[in-house]
């Protein structure tokens, strides 16, 4: 997810802004009255935003649903249902973790808990399917797949070693 900038608009509400994967900048003005306005940056001037849409609170909820607020959860649930017992989770690597600064191989997570690390999320970037010699840093998130029990063990492994 892109970084969202938030600024107060005194007397109006709050203004949010983020950059899309295609490089467009989207602004959302959330009025105190409940009105939501969507703005898009004009190409030649990065600071000027053109109003695209105005949405009532109900419209905003509908659009959010259509855009996938529920779909992401639905897809994950589908995947977990198809392979019974499979759990996908994001595990944080805290600075006091014994594996902060060590490699994926060092954790021996797969052999000790049966849980696989399918990706490492680091700030805005992600390392998909990391090999055993990829380093894990504090502040990273490990995207892991395994059984519920295995993931519980993986959590304590990351915490206590």
């Amino acid at each position, binding site marked *: 997810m892109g970084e969202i900038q938030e600024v107060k*608009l005194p007397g*109006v509400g709050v*203004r949010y802004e983020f950059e899309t994967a295609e490089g467009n900048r989207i602004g959302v003005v959330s009025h105190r009255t409940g009105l939501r*306005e969507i703005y898009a940056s004009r190409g030649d001037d*990065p*600071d*000027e*935003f053109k109003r695209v849409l105005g949405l009532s609170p109900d419209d905003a909820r509908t659009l959010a649903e259509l855009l996938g607020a529920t779909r992401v959860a639905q897809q994950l649930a589908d995947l977990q249902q198809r392979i019974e017992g499979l759990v996908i989770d994001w595990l944080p690597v805290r600075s006091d973790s014994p594996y902060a600064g060590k490699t994926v191989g060092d954790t021996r997570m797969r052999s000790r808990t049966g849980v696989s690390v399918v990706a490492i999320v680091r700030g805005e970037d992600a390392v998909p399917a990391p090999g055993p010699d990829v380093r894990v840093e504090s502040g990273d998130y490990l995207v892991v797949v395994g059984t519920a029990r295995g993931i519980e063990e993986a959590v304590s492994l990351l915490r206590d070693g």
Partner: protein
Amino acid sequence: MGHAELLVELGAVLLGLAVLSRLASRTGMPTIPLYLAAGLAFGEGGLVPLVTADEFVEVGAEIGLILLLFMLGLEYTASELVSTIRAQRRVGLLDLALNFPPGFLAAIALGWGPTVGVVLGGVTYVSSSGIVAKVLSDQGWTGNRETPVVLSTLVIEDLVMALYLPVLGALLAGAGGAASLLPAVGSIAAVALLLAAATRIDVGISRVLFSRSDESLLLTILGVTILVAGGAEAFGVSAAVAALLVGIVLSGPAAEAAQGLLTPMRDLFAALFFAFVGLSVDPATIPPVLVPAVLLAVVTLVTKALTGWIGAARAGVGVRGGTRAGLLLAARGEFSIAIAGFATAAGVAADVEALAVAYVFVLAITGPILVRFAEAISAPFVRRSTAETRG
């Protein structure tokens, strides 16, 4: 009843203002300069002097100023004010440092002395929240990146006014006497207390005042506001500042409903206020102050544009956005007029009001016009800065 003459005059005044308001909305111009001009034409020494409606317009004008400030306070919550001051105090200080001195120095240069200097400094310092907000939404710039800077600057100015007006009142009342400082200290303490208590106190009061019936809510809010304003005036504190504070304290459903109900009242009485200011200025006093007024307008157009430019640049906004912000803020209006009226009421030389009227007239018209050419105005600077980054 024997009020036929009064009714005819009042009706004619309102109809005249209505024609001007239509003209304004056709052309996208602010109404303030037009109302001022109408007042000048009908006032003392004007084309068609009013005879009987004068007194009614005067009371209406007083209510207009109270409602203007009350509605302004209504737009902000106390916690919003506090967080804006924290985040934007540097830009706020810059705004004061760039736009107060021109007025002050102009008064000194005209030989009017430092007290009038403080009056004129206030006139050139404060932008018109009303004009800026309207032009901002007319241009469709609400979503722009420089807009938070513009709105924060206005908020801080409005708050500075709450501190400035009582101090000015004390200055005008009698140079230096300890007793004349009391109301000033009192209202400054009230503002500080209010902001310190921030969100805590407003909830209860707003709940007590709220009513589901529009009629009772309208009468309650209007009654409380005018009563508090009048009470403050009786104690020597500016009625306008008291109204501003009442507006800030009100929040929640009572504030939202009041905004809808009182906007038409505000529009009516504010129109009378501007017309009244025009009425009370003798047109013959304008020509002698015209040259200083225009000079002051040019200088403070530049200083205000600089304020917006620097403020926007600090927020990471480019040259074009900065130009938009600066030109938006250049418009002076209701507050500048209120300050000058305040000074005249306290017995300062009438020339100040004439100068302020001419000054506001120039900036309230040129500001919004220049805003439309923001792109063209910023073009040479844009080319230079892109050339710099390339080279």
